C-alpha cells in the first residue's frame, strides 16, 4: 500500500492549520490539497474525489456540519474527519452521528494523528477489498484510550474527564493489571500540563537510597559512582505530572521526604544544599489497602490525606463482563496488524472461554493471552486451544472447590471436547464406559 495512492483534502479557514497539517501529510507521502472554506472545498470536489477529508467544524460562511452533509451527496465514499477546538466537541459528536468517521481536537497529538490516519487508510483498503469490517469499535481510536462500554468503565471515563483539567492530586486504586498508569496518562493528557512531561516512578521496585536519588537527583560526588550532577524525576517533571506507582510500598523515610516536598514544592538534590523548586501535579497509584496500612502505622496518615484528595477506583476486569470481548477484539486487531497475521475474530468456544475466565491478572492478562494467541494460533480465527486460560469461572477459585465439583467440571469438559462421544471421553478419562454413563446420570450431565 503506497501513501501516494491516497488523496487528502484539508478544509480549514486558518492558513496556519492548512499549512502545518498539509505539510505533515505531504511528508507522509500523501497527495494533499487544501481549501479555505466550504465554497472552495466544493469547487475542489467538483474536480475530483478524495479518500480522506479533514474538515474544520467552525468556519465562517458554510459551517463544517453543512459542508459535511453536502460532501455525503458528492463524494459519497470519502472518509471524513472533523477538526475541532476542545470547546466544540459536542458539535463534533453531532458530526459523528451524521456520518463523520472520527474527530480530532486542536492541537493535535502527532502520534494520535498518525495512528488515526493509518487506521483510516487501512479501513479503506479493507473496504476496497470487500473485506468485512469487524473493527468498528465505537468511540475508540488511537493508543492509550481507555476501552470499554460497561457502565463501570463509562463512569471511570467521566471521572477522568472531570478531574483531568483541574490540578487536583489524584489517587488511583485498583488490582494490578487494571491499567492504572494508562489512567494516569489519560488524566495528564486531559490537563493543561499536557505539553510537559509525565514522569512515572515505580516506588515498588527500588531500594530506599536508589529511590531517593531517582526522586531528588544528586550532585556530583554525592556518593561513589555519582560522577555527574543529575536531575531527579521531580525536577524533570517541572510543569508536568509525577506518577507514583505502588506508592503503598515506600519506606518511612521516603514518606517523610515526600510529605515535605508536597508541602513546600521544594527539595534538595542528594548531596546538595541549594533548594530546587519544581511545579508538578501528583497522581499516585496503589493496589494495597492504604487505609489498613494507615491503621497499622506503616503508612503516614498525613501523607495519605495529601495524596488521596480525589480517589479513582479501577474495576477489575471480572466486574466488566461486557468489556471482555470488546477488549479481546481490540487486542486481536492490534496484534494481528503489528505481527502481520490475518486474524479476523474468535471461534465461538474461544469467546465463551474468554467470557468464563476470571482474569485475575486483569486487562494485562487478557492482552498477554491475545498476543500469545496471535503468535501460536492459525489465522483467521482464534480457537479456545490457543488461549492460555482454563478453569471456567462458574466453578470459582480452584482452592475452595470440593473434589466432587472438580470431578463434575472435568467430566463436563472432556465430554464437550469429545462432542458427546462417550467412548472417546471414557478413554480420555481412563475409566470404562459404564462408569462414565453412571456418572453422567448421577451428576445429571448433558452429552
Amino acid at each position, binding site marked *: 500500500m503506497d501513501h501516494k495512492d491516497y488523496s487528502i483534502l484539508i478544509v480549514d479557514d486558518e492558513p496556519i492549520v492548512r499549512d*502545518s497539517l498539509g505539510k505533515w501529510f505531504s511528508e507522509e507521502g500523501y497527495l494533499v490539497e487544501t481549501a479555505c472554506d466550504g465554497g472552495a472545498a466544493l469547487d475542489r470536489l467538483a474536480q475530483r474525489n478524495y479518500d480522506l477529508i479533514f474538515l474544520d467544524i467552525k468556519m465562517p460562511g458554510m459551517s463544517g456540519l453543512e459542508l459535511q452533509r453536502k460532501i455525503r451527496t458528492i463524494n459519497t465514499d470519502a472518509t471524513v474527519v472533523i477538526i475541532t477546538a476542545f470547546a466544540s466537541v459536542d458539535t463534533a459528536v453531532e458530526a459523528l452521528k451524521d456520518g463523520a468517521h472520527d474527530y480530532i481536537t486542536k492541537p493535535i497529538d502527532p502520534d494520535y494523528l498518525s495512528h488515526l490516519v493509518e487506521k483510516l487508510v487501512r479501513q479503506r483498503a479493507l473496504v476496497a477489498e470487500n473485506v468485512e469490517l469487524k473493527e468498528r469499535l465505537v468511540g475508540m481510536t488511537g493508543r492509550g484510550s481507555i476501552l470499554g462500554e460497561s457502565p463501570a468503565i463509562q463512569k471511570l471515563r467521566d471521572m477522568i474527564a472531570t478531574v483531568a483539567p483541574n490540578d487536583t492530586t489524584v489517587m488511583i486504586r485498583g488490582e494490578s493489571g487494571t491499567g492504572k498508569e494508562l489512567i494516569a496518562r489519560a488524566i495528564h493528557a486531559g490537563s493543561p500540563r499536557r*505539553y510537559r512531561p509525565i514522569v512515572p516512578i515505580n516506588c515498588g521496585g527500588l531500594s530506599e537510597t536508589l529511590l531517593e536519588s531517582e526522586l531528588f537527583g544528586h550532585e556530583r560526588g554525592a556518593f561513589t559512582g555519582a560522577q555527574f550532577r543529575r536531575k531527579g524525576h521531580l525536577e524533570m517533571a517541572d510543569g508536568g505530572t509525577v506518577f507514583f506507582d505502588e506508592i503503598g510500598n515506600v519506606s518511612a523515610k521516603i514518606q517523610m521526604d515526600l510529605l515535605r516536598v508536597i508541602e513546600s514544592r521544594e527539595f534538595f538534590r542528594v548531596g546538595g544544599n541549594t533548594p530546587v523548586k519544581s511545579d508538578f501535579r501528583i497522581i499516585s497509584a496503589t493496589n494495597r489497602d492504604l487505609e489498613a496500612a494507615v491503621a497499622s502505622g506503616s503508612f503516614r496518615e498525613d501523607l495519605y490525606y495529601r495524596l488521596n484528595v480525589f480517589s479513582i477506583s479501577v474495576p477489575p476486569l471480572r466486574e466488566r463482563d461486557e468489556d471482555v470481548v470488546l477488549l479481546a477484539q481490540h487486542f486481536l486487531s492490534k496484534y494481528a496488524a503489528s505481527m502481520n497475521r490475518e486474524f479476523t475474530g474468535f471461534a465461538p468456544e474461544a469467546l465463551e472461554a474468554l467470557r468464563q475466565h476470571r482474569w485475575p491478572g486483569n486487562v494485562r492478562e487478557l492482552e498477554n493471552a491475545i498476543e500469545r494467541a496471535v503468535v501460536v494460533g492459525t489465522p483467521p480465527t482464534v480457537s479456545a486451544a490457543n488461549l492460555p486460560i482454563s478453569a471456567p469461572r462458574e466453578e470459582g477459585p480452584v482452592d475452595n472447590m470440593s473434589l466432587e465439583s472438580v470431578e463434575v467440571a472435568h467430566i463436563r469438559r472432556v465430554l464437550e471436547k469429545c462432542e458427546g462421544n462417550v467412548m472417546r471421553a471414557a478413554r480420555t478419562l481412563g475409566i470404562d464406559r459404564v462408569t462414565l454413563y453412571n456418572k453422567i446420570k448421577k451428576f445429571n450431565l448433558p452429552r
Partner: protein
Amino acid sequence: MADGDRANGGDILVVPVDCANLALLQRLTTDLHATLARTATVASWELSPQFAREAARGQYNSSMILAELFKRRTNPPMRILGVTDVDLFAPVLTYVFGEAQMHGPAAVVSTFRLRPELYGLDPDPEILSRRLLVESVHELGHTAGLTHCHTPGCAMIGSTYAEEIDLKGPRLCERCGEVFGAIWFEQRRDHP
C-alpha cells in the same frame, strides 16, 4: 560570522539553537559524515530561539525557527541544520521532533524528546546521540524532497515517539539513498 562558515565550506552547517552540549554537535558532524558522506561543521555562531517561544505552551514554534535559519543561510554550505534542546511544536501539533523545508536548504531538530530521562529512564549519551543522528538524517532527507518510507530500518520511516526512532537506523534505504544523492548532485550543479 557566516563568512567564516562559508570559507570552510562544508556540505552541512550545524547551528546551535540554544543547545548546551557542543560535544554532542561535534559528534553529530562526524556521524553525519560517516552516514551520508557529506562533510558537516558546527557553525561559529548561534541562534537564540526566544523569538519563537509561545509562552502559553512553554514550547517553541519550529516553523518560525526554520524560517529564521533559512534567512541566515549562505551557499555553500548546501544545507543548514539547527539543533536545539528546547521543545518544538508545529502549529496544530502538540510537538514535533524536528521540521524541514521540503526541497529547501533548512532543517531543525530538537533533543528535548529524544532524551531517555524525559521518559523516566537513565540519561544515556549513546542513545541520545544515535537518536539525534537518525532524526537529523531524516530531516535532511526531507530537504531533499524525500517523503516517509516504509522500508524496514530506513531513516525516512516516520516516527512519533522516541522508541520508534530506535527501531530504525541512521542510514537511508537504497531507494531513498538514490533519490537523496541524485537531488544533492542536481542542486550542487544548479548552485555551484
